Every structure is written in structure tokens, then in C-alpha cells.
């Protein structure tokens, strides 16, 4: 049987287009068929998780049943008229929701790189969706649990492998309604544009940077041993590859969602134009950074301030930045370079905030003009590219594993 990585090759796109055509004609005439959507979802999930990868398909099914039962039970507990809404029940539920992902992430670190049998493509992204749903149920903003809708939210095939991470309430609103013809035509126009921009990003630019240039500069950097100009080349080339590859994929996922009448949120907004690190995280992998902002950072700050753990607001903000980014590092994987990447961004946020406070206080004496703006963008770009060099793991190869 055929087996594909999502958006991996032209055949996938042709199949996708054929499958979406009836659905698009339906939406154009004001009809949405959940039966048809479910069938094509099933087919495309089978193409991704079937064939030689059938064991990941089994893992996905088990994961899905486990999480639906878990969220269903928690939801039942919260929706009881006299629900005590105990903190420990919530914490245990979140831990249980994260447990499969934790096993998948920790297994390679403790078993010499072997991957866990319960893993499958996209498990991290499904876990984000599960955890946020539990948190919103705890807060009482999700008041009903529909196992089927929740399953469709988790399995929405355009975004299953790497996001963007949607929110349950937002997704359901789109999924349960039909856009007006005018609105749908605008969505199709945008969707098609995104898919074509995605082709440019992923199959041309990411190909040039990642497949053509990266091996060349990496080879040169390894030959040079240690710090070299070639290493600087690796830093920039890898950063460009990372952006165009992931932004290209995200454009496909958003574009295809639009064609299905679902406004999946955008993931990137010209991140290399950022004026500071805070600005960067509002533009880079936005659905992830907003997830961390809303479900980790803000809740952590809320908890810390409510219990008056620290006297100073600044200390509170800073400690929470570092914890937040450190968790993000751990989420990427249990290697030193992901964790250092997280810490690096945590401290970058702390420094960034200190600078913003200083600037606010000394507004009159600090120049602000076109030149300082370009300088800020240049500086931010380089700090970010350096963090990606850490993230790439190339330093690990260069300094620890690359020695002959």
C-alpha cells in the first residue's frame, strides 16, 4: 500500500485535490457533509499511518481512545452539578494526558536513540490539543464534551502531523457551520495562494538551503574543527532552511484547512522582521508560542502571584519566562541542545524585558530612528539564528560526536 509523509510529494497533492473537489463544491453550495469529510480524513490518515507504518497507526488509535476516555471522564467530573473541582484531580488528569508523550520523548534518551512503540507522527501536537481542552474544561469555558467532535478535532488531517495547533472551541465553531459563499470564495482564494506560496517555500527555498547548501557548509565546518566562518554559514543556512521548511509546511496545512472551510490559525508572520525577542515569539511558530503563553506562562504567573511566591512583579515574570521556555526545550526532546535552546530563549526574554524597562525610563535620552530600528532587527535576527544553531544539534556533532 502507498504511504506518504503529509505534503511530501506531488502525488499527495494530486490525491488531495481530487478528494477535496467534491467537498469544495459542496461548501460552495452551502453544504457540509461530515460523512464525506470523515471518509477522506480516514483515507489520508491511512496514507500517513498505514502501509509499512501500520504500527504507528495502531499507536494512534490506542492514543486516541485513551485521550477521549480521559477527557470524557474529566469532563464528566467537572460537569457534575456539585463538582468539587479539586486541584489534584485536574493535575492528575493533565499528568495522565502528558504521560504518553513523556514516554515517547524520554525513550530515545534512555535507550540509545531507539524510538518508543507507542509513538506516532504528530503525538506532540495532539497532546497540546488534549491538554488545552482539559484546562479549558477546568476553567469552565468548555461546558460540553462530544467524544466524536473531540476526536475530529484531534484527527483533523491537514494539521495532524505538525500543527498549527488549533483551539477546540474555535475549531468546532468552523466545523459545525458552513461559511457564506462570499466568505468561502475568499477562503479558497487565500487557501490556494497559501498552498502555492508553500510550494515556493518548501520545495524551492527549503530545497536550496536544506538539500543543496546545508551539507556543503556543514562539511566545511566539520573540516575546520571548532569555530570557523563555515560554522557561521551553517548558522544562517540552517536558520533559513528551518524557516522555509516549517513555514512552507504550515502554509500547506492552513491553506488546505481553508479549502475545507476551517480557519486554522497562521503559524508565522514574517519572523525575521522582529524588533526584539518578544516580538519574535509573537511571529515565530505562533500557535506553539501562544499555546505556551496561554496554557503555561499565564497560568504560572497567575498561580505565583495569587500565592504571592515572589514579592516583585519583575522576579515573577522572569522566573516564569525561564520555566516556560525550559518546558518548551524539554518538549522538543531530551537532548542537551534542546534544553539549552529553551534556557537561551528564557534568558533572552529576561534581558529583553529589562531593556524595555530601561528604555521606558530613559525615553528622552535613547535615540529612536530608522537606523536604531534596523539595528534592532539585525541584532534580533542574529540572536535568533544563533539559538537555531544550538537547536540544530550541529554543535553536538561538531564538538562531541564529530571528532574522528
Amino acid at each position, binding site marked *: 500500500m502507498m504511504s506518504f509523509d503529509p505534503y511530501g510529494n506531488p502525488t499527495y497533492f494530486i490525491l488531495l485535490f481530487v478528494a477535496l473537489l467534491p467537498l469544495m463544491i459542496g461548501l460552495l453550495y452551502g453544504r457540509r457533509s461530515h460523512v464525506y469529510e470523515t471518509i477522506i480524513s480516514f483515507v489520508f490518515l491511512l496514507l500517513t499511518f498505514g502501509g509499512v507504518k501500520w504500527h504507528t497507526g495502531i499507536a494512534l488509535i490506542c492514543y486516541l481512545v485513551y485521550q477521549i476516555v480521559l477527557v470524557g471522564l474529566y469532563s464528566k467530573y467537572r460537569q457534575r452539578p456539585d463538582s468539587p473541582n479539586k486541584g489534584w484531580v485536574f493535575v492528575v488528569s493533565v499528568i495522565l494526558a502528558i504521560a504518553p508523550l513523556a514516554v515517547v520523548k524520554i525513550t530515545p534518551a534512555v535507550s540509545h536513540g531507539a524510538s518508543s512503540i507507542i509513538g506516532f507522527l504528530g503525538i506532540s501536537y495532539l497532546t497540546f490539543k488534549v491538554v488545552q481542552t482539559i484546562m479549558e474544561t477546568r*476553567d469552565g*469555558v468548555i461546558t460540553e464534551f462530544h467524544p466524536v467532535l473531540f476526536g475530529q478535532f484531534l484527527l483533523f488531517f491537514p494539521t495532524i502531523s505538525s500543527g498549527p495547533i488549533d483551539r477546540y472551541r474555535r475549531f468546532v465553531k468552523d466545523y459545525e457551520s458552513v461559511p457564506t459563499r462570499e466568505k468561502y470564495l475568499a477562503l479558497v482564494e487565500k487557501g490556494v495562494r497559501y498552498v502555492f506560496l508553500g510550494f515556493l517555500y518548501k520545495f524551492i527555498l527549503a530545497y536550496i538551503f536544506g538539500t543543496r547548501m546545508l551539507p556543503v557548509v556543514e562539511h566545511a565546518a566539520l573540516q575546520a574543527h571548532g569555530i570557523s566562518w563555515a560554522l557561521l554559514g551553517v548558522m544562517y543556512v540552517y536558520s533559513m532552511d528551518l524557516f522555509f521548511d516549517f513555514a512552507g509546511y504550515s502554509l500547506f496545512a492552513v491553506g488546505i484547512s481553508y479549502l475545507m472551510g476551517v480557519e486554522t490559525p497562521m503559524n508565522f508572520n514574517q519572523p525575521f522582521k522582529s524588533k526584539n525577542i518578544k516580538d519574535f515569539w509573537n511571529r515565530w511558530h505562533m500557535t506553539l508560542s501562544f499555546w505556551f503563553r*496561554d496554557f503555561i506562562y499565564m497560568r504560572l504567573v497567575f498561580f505565583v502571584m495569587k500565592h504571592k511566591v515572589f514579592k516583585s512583579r519583575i522576579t515573577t515574570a522572569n522566573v516564569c519566562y525561564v520555566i516556560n521556555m525550559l518546558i518548551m526545550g524539554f518538549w522538543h526532546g531530551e537532548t542537551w541542545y534542546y534544553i539549552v535552546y529553551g534556557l537561551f530563549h528564557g534568558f533572552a526574554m529576561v534581558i529583553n524585558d529589562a531593556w524595555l524597562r530601561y528604555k521606558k525610563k530613559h525615553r528622552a535620552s535613547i535615540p529612536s530612528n530608522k537606523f536604531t530600528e534596523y539595528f534592532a532587527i539585525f541584532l534580533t535576527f542574529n540572536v535568533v539564528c544563533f539559538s537555531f544553531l544550538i537547536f540544530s544539534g550541529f554543535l553536538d556533532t561538531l564538538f562531541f560526536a564529530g571528532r574522528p
Partner: protein
Amino acid sequence: MDETKSAVLAILQDLTGEDVSANMDANLFDEGLLDSMGSVQLLLELQNQLGIEVPVSEFERSEWETPAKIVAKVESMQ
């Protein structure tokens, strides 16, 4: 000016260090006056001073980005 509005504006002045009453439609996030930290402080102050419980899940940035929107949101929750 009614009570809720002046209470909210006082909280915002305390948080942002600026009098925002002249510019009720200014985007506080874009202007760098509020951030996640400020948002949480706002929620806590609303709870302490006005007794309105707003869970973090309810905080959708686009619904809380200007002083006018914040006042409207708080009034709707009272």
C-alpha cells in the same frame, strides 16, 4: 463616568503607568503597555477590586486589547 469604568481605568493606569482614559481605543498590546504578565495582573486586580472572577481561559487577547473593550468586557461580566 460610571463606577466600573473609572475602576477599570484606575487599574490600567496602575499597571501601565499611563493615563489611558484619553485613548480608549488604543491597542494596549501593540503599544507595549500590556503583555501576558500585565494581563494576569489585570485579571487578579479585577478579582480583588471588583470581585469578578475571570479564568485565564476566558482571556482572548483580541477581546481585551483596548481600554474600551476591557471596560465593555468587565461590564458584561458584572
